[in-house]
């Protein structure tokens, strides 16, 4: 079974004026993820949100150059367009790798997921480390090239190139076809 992972699509990372807003390039992936979620929902493919939850006293959080997605703030909420629905799984994440200190691995195994589809921010941060974490936990991994974003094209391309030996890199249309069983 597939599962779609939506990483850190929160107001602070995506919305205009968010603490670490990536600008238009961040908002450009929203419709791609929306279409992917719609297709996944139709096929009863689980959607799992990894939402960064920064606890200000955490020494790791103190190292972040700009505070963002702080627990209890509006900036931590998932953006309206991708708001979770009943039946979706919500995982609070505490590091860049969504597996670290979280229940993500348990959820994937309990639900019976074999292939993790990765979307969200940032391609060379959470997406890369979570994809590598999933690969090393023996899941198949698909990274959605137009469903992940980082601060510039060079970093985007470098991250996808890094991930290529370990994952399948597909665009959102290709993944939707895969979910529909058309390929």
């Amino acid at each position, binding site marked *: 079974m597939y599962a779609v992972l939506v990483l850190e699509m929160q107001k602070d990372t995506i919305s205009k004026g968010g603490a670490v807003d990536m600008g238009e390039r961040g908002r450009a992936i929203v419709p791609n993820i929306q279409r992917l979620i719609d297709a996944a929902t139709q096929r009863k493919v689980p959607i799992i949100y990894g939402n960064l939850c920064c606890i200000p006293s955490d020494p790791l959080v103190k190292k972040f150059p700009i505070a963002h997605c702080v627990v209890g703030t509006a900036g931590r909420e998932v953006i309206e367009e991708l708001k979770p629905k009943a039946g979706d799984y919500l995982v609070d994440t505490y590091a860049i790798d969504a597996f670290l200190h979280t229940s993500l691995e348990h959820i994937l195994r309990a639900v019976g997921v074999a292939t993790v589809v990765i979307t969200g921010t940032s391609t060379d941060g959470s997406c890369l480390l979570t994809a590598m974490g999933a690969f*090393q936990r023996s899941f198949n991994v698909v990274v959605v090239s137009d469903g992940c974003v980082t601060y510039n094209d060079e970093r985007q391309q470098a991250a996808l190139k890094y991930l290529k030996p370990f994952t399948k890199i597909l665009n959102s249309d290709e993944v939707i076809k895969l979910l529909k069983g058309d390929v």
Partner: protein
Amino acid sequence: MHAVLVLEMQQDFILEGSVLDLGETGRAMIPRIEKLLDVARERKAPVIYGNIYFVAQDPLFTMLPLDYCIAGTAGAEVVDELRPSDGDHIVTIYRMNAFLYSNLEYLLTVLGVATVIITGQSTNTGCLLTAMEAFQRGFKVIVASDGCATYKEEKHRAALEYLRPYARILTIDEIIDLLKG
């Protein structure tokens, strides 16, 4: 306290003609890491080896079309020059990220380690993913720029650039000065 991590400096990756031979860049690390380990042991900084051993039933090991680091064979042993000394710690690792499924975090914690110094191979896989995991687990991280290696110089440099926001990138000589400090 500092600890030196020596990742996968096993014969099958390092020796000339071995199955996954990194080439001269792999062998060039040996005397530098050796020098660092001497100073670390002298200063009572723990030395921890991360050694991988082939598991035939694990699909991740059979992705490469060859067997390597089979327990009990010479290829699985740490290269002679870096052979563990009494009091060193050896962690069996199963993944590129040396923390995953291993007792590495336990060891670092009970030894009271605050700063992990990363050496070994390869820069863009084992070293990078272990450095990032150490950073995320709240350790300070130093990566030895001339004490890590990978198959291509370009990949080595890109990995060090990737790590720069999360780790201090220092040469072996700089790290030795730090330990002696």
